Each structure stands twice: as C-alpha cells, then as structure tokens.
C-alpha cells in the first residue's frame, strides 16, 4: 500500500493547480487554492454552497482569467490559453446545467464531441472526398456505441433538448467522452438526477476511470462522492480546508464543521 502511494507521488500529476486566486469586485472568491489530479483517479472537489467549486472549474478552463496562480496541465500552463486551446489539449469539461445543443439530435450532439479529433474538415467534406465519408461513417458507428453504453441509443434521432434532465446530463458526459479527454472535468454531474440515475452515473464514472481517463468532479451528492472518488479536495469559502481519501475526509473535523457549522464562540 505504501509503495503504491510512493509510486503515485513520483509520477507527475495530470493537473496541478497552484496558489490560485480570484476576486470578483471586492469579494475574494478563491484564495490560495492548490490541489492535484493524479492519473487514472477520480478526484472530487466538494464543499458547501458558495465555496467556489464551479469558480475553480471556470478558472481552470479560463472562462474567467485568474488573478494569480498557476494551472499546469500535462506540462502546459493553462492560465493564458483560450477555452478552445485548453479543450484542444485534451482538458474537456461539462457544465452544471446540462448544455446539450438545441436544434440537434442526440446523435449529432455526441458527434460534435468528436470535433476536435476529426481529420477531415470543411473542404474535403465539400468535395465529398471518400476519406471524409469513411471518417464520418466510422464516427457515427463510434457515437452509436457510446450512446449504447449509457442506454441512450434508442433516442439517437430525438431532439436532444426533449430528453429528460437525467438523460441530458448523461448525454453531456458521453459527448465529452467522445472528445477523447486526457482529463475529464464534470461540474455537478448528479445535479437534477434521481437516485436510480445517480447510480447509473456512478457506474459510468467508474467505467470512465477504468478506461484510464482521470476525472475531476465537482459534486454535492455525498454518497456519490464517497462511492466513486479516490481523492477528495474540500473547499470552504474559497480555500482548501482538507484533502485526502474519502475515509480521511469523513473523519476530518474541519470538514464536518464546514458542513454542519459550529457554535460561533467555539470558532477561534
């Protein structure tokens, strides 16, 4: 066991966030946040409402620029890259409210996911070159397979926004998977799911880990997190208050305090 941990420590992390800072106006939303995501592991980012979890996500994918700090992804500093460049490096994220593309079928939504890895672009498609046809054909087969994996293939020609919330959430994860992520970041994948759907999501997350894709998950649902995560990072009021295995986090006093609160005068 110890040897195992040692080996992990020596391997460079997939994502290393160092001393991240962000203020909105006068409010310090994120202060001095550091954590790592290790290969082939599920890392969960948890914390009470307003702790800054989604903000960390948005800083990593540069939807807002951070004020200070370093975000290192596979040896590349992300802080100055555009959202598109970050995706091109293989860091793929989903959104809190499932953002499937309206006006497209379920299958097309999944196909968009593959976009960054397509070899044939506009011109070859315009000329109907065989290569682009072959690629398109393969892509469709692959997308149908992926939909099959989560049981959505029956709805492949349905309008994506007609799916119930749970299915849209799964669709978004599948779409992100199609992008061939080297790190998959999921923002509250279980929000809006019922218990049965959450269990299926847990199975999907384990399957993704089994594929060797590291995951960073922001999540509220504790049972899901405790079930799936290998490592947990706890945020409160924009700062990391604890990190460790699910067991360690469950026993951590500061985490319990952050979630359950404590008498005002007991807080030193």
């Amino acid at each position, binding site marked *: 066991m110890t040897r195992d941990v040692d080996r992990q420590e020596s391997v460079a992390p997939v994502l290393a966030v160092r001393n991240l800072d962000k203020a909105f106006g006068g409010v310090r939303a994120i202060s001095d946040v550091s954590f790592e995501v290790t290969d082939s592991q599920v890392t969960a980012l948890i914390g009470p409402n307003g702790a800054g979890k989604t903000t960390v996500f948005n800083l990593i994918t540069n939807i807002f620029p951070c004020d200070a700090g370093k975000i290192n992804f596979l040896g590349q500093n992300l802080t100055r890259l555009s959202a598109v460049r970050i995706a091109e490096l293989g860091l793929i994220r989903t959104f809190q409210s499932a953002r499937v593309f309206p*006006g*497209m079928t379920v299958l097309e939504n999944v196909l968009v996911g593959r976009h960054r890895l397509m070899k044939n672009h506009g011109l070859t498609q*315009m000329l109907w070159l065989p290569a682009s046809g072959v690629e398109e054909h393969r892509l469709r087969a692959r997308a149908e397979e992926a939909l099959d994996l989560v049981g959505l293939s029956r709805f492949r020609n349905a309008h994506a926004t007609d799916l119930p919330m749970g299915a849209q959430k799964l669709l978004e994860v599948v779409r992100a998977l199609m992008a061939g992520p080297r790190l998959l970041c999921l923002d509250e994948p279980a929000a809006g799911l019922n218990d049965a759907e959450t269990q299926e999501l847990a199975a999907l997350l384990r399957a993704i880990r089994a594929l060797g894709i590291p995951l960073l998950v922001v999540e509220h649902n504790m049972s899901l997190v405790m079930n799936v995560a290998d490592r947990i990072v706890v945020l409160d009021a924009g700062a990391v208050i604890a990190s460790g295995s699910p067991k360690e986090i469950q026993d951590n006093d500061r985490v319990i305090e952050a979630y359950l609160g404590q008498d005002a005068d007991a807080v030193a």
Partner: protein
Amino acid sequence: MSEFVQICVGGVVVGSIYALIALGFSLVYRVTGAINLSQGGFSVLAALIGYTFSQTWGWPLLAAMPAAVFATVLIGIVLGYGTFVPAIERLSNSSVLMLTVGLLTMIEGFALVTWGSQPFALPPFSGEQPIVIGPIRVPTQAFWVLGAAAVVIVGLWYLVSRTRLGRGLRACAENPSAANLMGIDVPRMTLFSFGLATLIAAIAGVIVAPTTTLQFNTGSLFTISGFIAAVIGGISSFPGAIVGGIFLGLATQLATAYLSSLFSSAIALVVLLVVLVWRPTGLIQSKVTRRQDIRAEVRVSTHLVRMPSNVAWIAVPLALLLAIAVPFVVTDNGILSGIVIAGILFIALLGLDVLMGYAGQVSLGQAGFMAIGGYTSGYLAINYDISPVLGIIAGIALSVACALVLSVVTLRLRGLYLALATLAFGLLIDSFAVGLIDITGGPSGLVGIPPFSVAGFEFATPRAMYYVVLGINVLLLVALTGALRSGFGRALKAIRTDQMAAAALGVDVVRYKLVAFAISATLASLAGSMYAFFFNFLSPEMVGTSRSLELVAMLVIGGEGTLVGAISGSVLITLLPTIFQPFAIYKTLVTGGLLVLSFLYLPQGLYGAAVQFFVRYGGSRRKFLAPNPVPSKRAR
C-alpha cells in the same frame, strides 16, 4: 464663425430628432431586451397621415398633427399586440430584431401603396419666417423640434422614475421573470413600451416633417440614424440616447457642410464602427445593465427540420429534372427572367443560410457584398475588358477581404451588435456606390456591362443564363450539403446555440465564424456579379439595404438552416410581382407581411412546413421530427 454656429444649430435640431427615435430604441430595449427597428417607420407614417389630414382634408395643422400622432399610436398598438408581444414571448432576440425589420418593411409598403413614391413636405407649424438672432437665422420649426424633444424627455423621465407604471417598466428591464412573479403583467409592459416608443417616434415624425422631405422609404433612414445614435450613446441609457442623437446630428451636419454631402452617411457609419469597436456599450454606461435573459437561451431555434432520407432519394432527382425542364415549360421571357433572378438571389441566400441559419450570425448587409461583386466585375469588364469569370474572382477576393476586415472589427460583437455592424457595412458600401461616380456611375448606375461569357461563348438570353445559374446552384448545393451534413455543419450549429459549450469541446468558435462569414461574402459577391451580367446594368438601389433586408425575408420565409428552403422564399418574392404585374406596388407590403407572419406562425419556413407535412402525412413510418417518447427509466 456665424456659419459654423448656424450649422451647429441645424445639427442640434436634426440631432434632437435622432435623439427622440433613439429614446424609443432605448425604452423598448430596456424593457424587453429586443431592438425594435420599426421605430423610424412609425415616424414617417405619422408624418404622412398628418399630411393627409392637413393638406388633403384641410384640417388646421395644430389639430391634424395630434390626430396623426394618435392614429399612428393606435396602429402601433394594434401591430405591437399582434406581432411584437407574441414574438417577445417565443422568439430569440435576433429573430425579434428581424421581425421588426419585417414591420418596418410592412409600414413602408403600406406607405407606398397609400401615398405613392413621390416626396412630401409639410409647411412649418408657425410660418416660414425664420427668427433672426444676431447673424444667425433659425427657422421657427427648430423651436418646435427642440421644445417637443424637451417635453418628451422630461415626460419620459417623469414616467419612468416617478410613477408606479415606470417602476413596473424598470422591473421588467431588471428581470422579467422576477417581475412576472411579483405580479407585473410583463406582456402588458412590453406592449406599453412598444406603444410609448411609437408615440415618441410619431411625435418626432410630425415635428420633423416640415424641415425635410419625406418619402415612403424615409423610415429606414430614420430608423438607422436613430439606432446609430442609440448605440453611440449606449443602448440601454436614456441620457446616452440624447447625447448620441445630438452628437450624430452635429457630426453629420458638419460633415455635410465642410466635407461632402455624399459621404455624410459614410461619416456617420465610420463614427458608429469606431464607437462599436472602441466601446461596444456606448459612450454612456447605464447604471442598470440589462441582465442576460435566461429566456434568450431557451428561445434559440429549437426545431429540427430533416427531410427523411427515403423521401430525399426521390425528391432530389425529381427536383433536378423539374429544374432542367423549366425553360421548356415557361416560354414567357419576362417570367423566365424572374426565375433567373430568383436563382441568382438563391446563390446569395445559400451563403446567408450558412451564416444565419447554421452559424446563427445575423447579417443585414449581404447586399453590400453583392454590390462589391457586381461593381467590381462590371467595372473591370467595361473598362479593362476583363473576362466575366476573372471579374467574378476579383469581386470575390475583394468581398472576402472586406468580410475579413469587418469580422476582425466586429469579432467582439455578438448578436444584435453584429447585425448592426453588418447593416452599417451595407450602408457604407451603398454610400460608396452612390458617391464614387467615376467607378460606379453614381445614382444613375453602371451602364454597358457585357453579358456573362465563358471562353468567348456568351450567355445572353434568359434561357442560357438560366442553365448557368442552375449549374452554379447545383454545384453549390452539392458542396455545401457535403460540408453541412458532416463535421463542418455540426460545428456551426453548435456555435449557433451555445458558444461556450462548443468552445469547451474544442470547436474553434472564432475560426468557424470567420469561415461562415467568408462563405456568405463569397456567395453574395458571386450573386452580385451574376446579377450585373444578367441585367447588363447595376445601380445602387439594386444592391442596397432594402435588398439586404429582402434577402433576410426570403431566407426566413423559405426556411432557415435548411439550405434548399430559401429557394421557395426567393421564387415567391421575386415572381409574385412579375406574374401579377398590376400588384407590383404591393411587393414591399407583402414581403414585410410575409416576413412577420412566417416568424410568428411558420418559424421553420415554407420548406420546414412542407417537410413536416410529408413526415406526418407522407406515409413515412419513422419519425424524424423530434419524437418525444422518452421514458424516465432507461432500458438496459
């Protein structure tokens, strides 16, 4: 010096009118988040009704004008209730913008039918004798304009900031959903703001009428000037509207006096582009910024129009055969020419559909690229005897260059601002077409363009040209279908509905927008060249802003995002006036009306409706149009 002061007084007077119209824009924008481009139409309508009341029916001016304002507001409320209010509830903001373009077109069409195309002028309210202050002569009407502007501004300020109704309006501006929950009747507030804006526009119209001449289509000019003023000042700020209006009035008057009247609109547009790029939110920042409306995301086009593939296998060859047979069936040269024109416009529509229907970028300036293409190839053919094909290529090169410059300038702009920038671009090209007489022949047009020819073979007859245009369209359709059914089309559609999510998947949003814009410019330019070769003549109004708006109408009526759909819009609008000659005068009115109606009742256009009909009744067993039997439990 006195001349300068004189010009400045004139500028302030004109600027007050712009400011009034701009106030209407700000008001509707703040309450609903949509831009109402019909504004200027109501101004002209009020002035023309006032003309009928006072000059034709002989009412005294001071009775006729309020009556005209009242009548216009009534019309405005009816139109608003029937079109704008339902549109706000179900359409995206850019669709609402285009719907109001339809309203503007309708009002202009109505004015054309009722008052004809001659210009009108009203006498000043208090005599022709100007008031002399030292060396400066001020026409009395100027005092009416300034007075009316002051009254409207104070009244509006009082209404919005001091009354209960105003509080309701402000609540809608802050957050419509929350306002609704608080018991504010949002549709009523929408209608109220629309009516109030109409009132302001109508007052501006009657008060300005004596200082200028009005025609049925002066409305778009008012709309555009007022809108430019609103954007320069800051679209969601009332003081901004006033500052912007007066600034614009002064700038254009001074430019006209000291530079050239031909380029005064060009200067206004350059000012606009500079402001848009330098400060997209305008000179004066509003304290209340309108929130990103959640509905805006929900209301983006959500219908799926797909021709079932089994139907397509029969329909495509059938359509091709029919198209080839057309010149044998249609023997009337006039009608065949109409069909050729529809086909040429369809070239531009294909490009517009890539840009608007797929990538979701509204362009109100496509005719600008048509003008560049048409004038470039025409000029080269006449003066340097350059072959049409080379001329077309030169036109395309110039158009794409302009498109790239324009998109670099407008890259940061989205939605409504992009629509505005393209509109400004179209107007700019228009003013060059009128102003650069040596190259374009000015308002009377470029004469003597040779017919289209390839390697010495001339396509001079409508029939020959028909096959050329058909060939181009078939090639384009094949190429675009290839790209749009695969990755390219998916990337565009993803950008259309959710740029952030598209970027997060590695779809290069900027690049695809540029490519879509370049494609639309290329095809518009090609269409413009073919248009010039077909008519052997090109004048500014053939490729002016009304053409841009007509293209949008054709696309929407035919069906956005369907590629082939636009042909039905193009044929309908081009051929109806040709076939029913005596009704040609109704063309503008009908175009506007159809545009409004299809936004409200046929959002997927004629083509979409036809496909839907096929799918439902055509015996196709598979459902292609968004089936919804989605159980909550997944089957495994």
